[in-house]
């Protein structure tokens, strides 16, 4: 029997055994063996973790005296996910251990000598350099980003939520697609979901479109030959982008206050509301009337968002070659034609990925809605679903989580957003140069 086979079988039996006995790579073998020993010592952690994940606990919080001994379903779920991730890592290193034993054995079979430990460490450092560099970031990302996401997805298929399934008094259990069918079947949820979802799409489209057109308009104006001191103007127009968004939004929500806000006060002073030339007789409920509030949030978002596209588009426009315009002029093109057939296509081609990114960002634009209206005004949907007229999915999720503790429904909504935005991002990404070149 050749060494490759022997080492492979030994390492399959116990991690590192092949390396130590057959290949005589003691250090490597000891490292592998330590991994397996540690894993075996914590065997119970993995088994109980996975069992907990499957059952989500069996002992309820009743009767009262037993609460301390009862199972906390959510903790079990999280520990289960963590142990699965760790188990995955161990399984990968187990497979790697077998492959490594076979690889070294083959080398010995062919008559090569294996590198000594010092040499091995140097090779290892060179080979593993990328992994070592990434390790801190990767560990943090796995535990603080990936694990919570898996948890969030898992929640969508449980009944964890107000009022009947809040640990530690009650157990949480898997319900499969129960939450989805709840949303499809119950009219209360159904109405709210359809309403909020369609408004979210309308909002994302309009918010992106208005910001892009606003930015384009200002960029065109700044680009015109009539305008002097372009840098000065640009500095002014970039301001809304550089002021912290939360503050701008809170200021706007006060400016739009129906009774005392300066906008209505100004309208009064200019005679649009309530006076001699009065067009309107009462204050405008900028944020308190459903339709007006929806229009208002889009307009405020325009104020916040147009500078981004303006900055972007002025950059792109200056890079469009003058020769094209000159050639068009010789052919007798008007200004409008020049814009329609040269500027616009160039600009749109250069910014399509960014427009899609902006759409995704607006789809999840929590601040623009929450800090202006807190999702209100209410009355559009059934009060039990806790949603208002300007609520988009993300703010609804926030309110379901924080105010109503309906974690399962919130998680399901998160999953839906994840699928939609994930689709967009993936599409966007597929069209990038890096992906097409298959470079990375």
């Amino acid at each position: 029997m050749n060494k490759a086979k022997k080492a492979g079988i030994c390492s399959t039996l116990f991690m590192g055994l092949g390396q130590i006995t057959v290949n005589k790579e003691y250090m490597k073998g000891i490292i592998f063996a330590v991994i397996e020993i540690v894993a075996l010592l914590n065997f119970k952690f993995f088994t109980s973790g996975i069992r907990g994940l499957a059952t989500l606990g069996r002992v309820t919080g009743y009767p009262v005296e037993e609460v301390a001994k009862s199972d906390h379903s959510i903790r079990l779920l999280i520990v289960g996910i963590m142990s699965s991730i760790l188990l995955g890592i161990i399984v990968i290193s187990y497979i790697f251990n077998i492959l490594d034993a076979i690889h070294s054995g083959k080398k010995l079979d062919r008559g090569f000598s294996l590198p000594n430990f010092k040499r091995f460490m140097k090779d290892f450092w060179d080979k593993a350099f990328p992994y070592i560099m990434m390790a801190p970031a990767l560990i943090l990302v796995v535990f603080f980003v990936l694990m919570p996401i898996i948890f969030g997805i898992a929640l969508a298929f449980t009944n964890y939520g107000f009022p009947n399934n809040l640990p530690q008094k009650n157990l949480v259990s898997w319900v499969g697609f129960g939450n989805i069918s709840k949303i499809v079947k119950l009219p209360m949820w159904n109405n709210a979901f359809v309403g909020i979802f369609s408004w979210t799409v309308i909002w994302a489209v309009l918010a992106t479109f208005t910001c892009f057109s606003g930015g384009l308009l200002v960029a065109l104006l700044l680009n015109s030959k009539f305008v002097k001191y372009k840098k000065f103007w640009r500095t002014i127009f970039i301001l809304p982008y550089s002021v912290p968004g939360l503050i701008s939004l809170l200021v706007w929500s006060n400016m739009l206050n129906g009774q005392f806000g300066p906008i209505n006060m100004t309208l009064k002073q200019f005679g649009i509301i309530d006076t001699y030339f009065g067009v309107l007789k009462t204050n405008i409920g900028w944020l308190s009337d459903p339709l007006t509030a929806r229009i208002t949030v889009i307009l405020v978002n325009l104020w916040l968002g147009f500078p981004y596209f303006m900055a972007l588009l002025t950059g792109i426009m200056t890079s469009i070659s003058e020769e094209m315009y000159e050639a068009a002029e010789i052919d007798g093109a008007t200004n409008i034609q020049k814009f329609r057939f040269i500027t616009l296509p160039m600009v749109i081609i250069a910014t399509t990925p960014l427009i899609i990114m902006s759409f995704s960002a607006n789809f999840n634009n929590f601040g623009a809605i929450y800090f202006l209206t807190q999702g209100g005004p209410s009355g559009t949907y059934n009060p039990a679903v806790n949603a208002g007229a300007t609520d988009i999915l993300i703010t609804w999720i926030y309110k379901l989580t924080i105010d109503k503790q309906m974690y399962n429904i919130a998680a399901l909504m998160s999953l839906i957003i994840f699928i939609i935005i994930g689709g967009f991002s993936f599409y966007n990404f597929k069209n990038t140069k890096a992906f097409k070149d298959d470079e990375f």
Partner: protein
Amino acid sequence: MKNINKIILSMVMVVFLLAGCGKQVDITKTFSSTDKSQSTLEKLIAYEISEANKAVDIELLKVELSNTNSFSGKAAIVFNRKYDDALINVKIAEIYQSSEQKSNLDDLKKLYKEIASEYKSNIKALPDALVEGVEDINEILDDLNNYASAIASSNADIDTIVTDSQLFADRISAVVTVLYSKSEDFLVDYPDVLTDIENVEAVKNIGIQDIITKENKLKERLNKEAKKALQKTTLKEIESGYKAILKGNKNVKFDKVDYNDKEVFAVITYKNITDLYPNIIISTPKKLMSMDNTDESLVRDISRARLKYALNYMKSPILSAMKDFANEITYQVESLAIIKLEQAGKKITQASTKKLTDISRAYADEIYALGVKYGDIILNTPLEQVKTNIDSIITEALAELEVINAKYDALTTEEITLLENSLKEYKNLSGKIIDDTEAIGFILDIVDQYYSDIEKYSDNPVTFEKSANEFNEITMAYFSFNNPIPVEVRFTIDGKFINKMTYNDKIDSKDNYHINAQESGELTVRINANVNESLVLMNINAFSMTYYKYIALSILAILIVLFFVNKKAFKKMLTIIILLLISVIVLYPMAWIIGSSFSKHQALASVSINPIPKNPSLLQYKRLFLHESYDYAAWYFNSFKIAFFNMLMCVLLTVSTAYVFSRFKFRGKKSGMMFMLIIQIFPSFSAMVAIYTLLSSITFLKPLTGTQSLVDTHLGLLLVYSSGQVPYNTWLVKGYFDSISRSLDEAAKIDGASNLQAFWKVILPLGVPIVSFVAVTSFMAPWMDFILPTLLLKSPDKKTLAIGLQEMITGQANNNFTLFAAGAVLVAVPITALFSFCQKYVVTGLSSGAVKG
């Protein structure tokens, strides 16, 4: 040709500037010789002039005023005008004049009392009306609630409900009409008041000038006497007494002081008036008034000075706090009570339609939610059995409700018959729910006893915090009339839920609310600065509006002329006008918030729309750092700390990962990048529960943080922030590193540099723009993040700016708008400056595909 254009242009400008200055120029003549746009312009100008004339017509103003919709606006304007400073000032001026002749102190006192009583009686009129209105409204509200529960348990058919609800609507409108008619009375006196005011203004100015000169003389004299008198021993005691008062001791007595000593008296009075008016004036007037044998001229001077300070006292900033309260009350009464009442009326009117069941569902949901919530909170482990009972009752009720809901949703064709059936069922059910809530109330009574027993023995801060929060919520709910649950039911549950002490407190506060409403009603009338000056301002505004209009019209005219004579100049001008307009829209909110931060007042209602404040003051900035419940400096420091370390960690993690992804080929690279792409998309709220649990299970860092786990620590927040930003930034930085030529670092490696050296010496210096971008964005992100800190930070001293600022202006009880403005300016200015400073890098980042969160 060109010259003609210029001539026309300058003519138009001259004409409009003249018109804008209010000079009566015969515009038609000037225009008769010009081109085709003449007639349009003529019409426009004629219209503007006629409108402007209308604007200053007081009669028209009056008519319009009486037509205004808002009862409160109308009443407040008239009231305020009528009983405003002016009248008091007239009286005060009269006293000044008569005091010159009258040497008798009693006469002075009499006059003083006269003014006070007249002032009071006048001013009481409105608040009484308002309070009556509020009481009426409360009554109707109670009736409505009774009626709502009556419907639930009776067999009344839909038509009766509609007619009954019409009655309620009528009652409501009757109350409002009464309030209207009361305000109507005041309108009658309106023209006289206006003339009064004009007269008074002049008198007042002269009077005040007089007082100031006399005051100065008095000060000089008293200063001299004070210096002399200070050597006496009794005076030292007075000095120490004042110092004690200044430190806040309210129980200082001046027993040993001989008030009959002329010099002592002088010092006291002088001190009273100049330094400690509000404290001392109350403690000494009797002494002061009983002194008949003092120098009469001195007494006169003093009483004048007193009057002056009384006047100032009225305007002093102390009242601004009360004014805010008054605003609050007006706001509550006007906008909420009346609107809500109308809404309630409408709701009842719509009771025959589907709405009724919707409301009932909401109602049942609310009761159910409240019951379970309280059960959850109160009934922790030791009271499980009781909880089970409540739960089962509630579950039953909900199950039945679900059945009805399902039935109701099945309604399609035979709606009316089914509706009637379900209405009956609803009625039965809601009767049952009321029974159930009573049962819950009974059980909760017992629970309450248990609870207070437990509370005696265990000092549990968490429970207290919770019940305090709940109390606030309920109080707010009560005041804003938001809750569709009848008041009695709500109170039974709420009262049981909160412990008895707070329940009594709440009843007290309800009574206080009405008393305060009465008191502050006077203040509403007296001090609401915006409304107060509105009538005089209206005239001024109407006048200034014509200026604005002339200016706008001039620009318009120039544009029109340009359009016909010089297309190019027209375009140029149009472009600049549009840019200017956009600048105004962009800059106004910022200018306004900066202006507001320099205001002396606190409420949003008192902030002027003019971004340049009239009397700028740093009061709000001082309050920001001295405020008893907001620790702004700590928030600022916390945010800065988190931002700074987040920046360090983010740059470190991102740059190392991006370098690897950009320069090395290794197994799992493509899937790693894909992983990074996908992972950043998931919305993080539902993941928050996991993050929270994860942080609370990390206990091994206790020696480092000093807390049990990472929850409620800045370190935990930092870890979540920096790891959350890694995926996106890695993509960004990797893209930038890719654009740096590989031959550079390969050359370095051939020269013997290690991977780390090549990275440190070659890649990093070339990647400065994108690294700076990551640094800037990761530094700025935590400043304004709201969600994570709300969830993870519990203790007040760990709060960050975003939470603090948001708390400052949400909730009507916290009417701290200008304080918020000052806080916001202090954050926004450095961050905006930083952003503008790093604009170069930011634009680089932008074109690499950054999106601002």
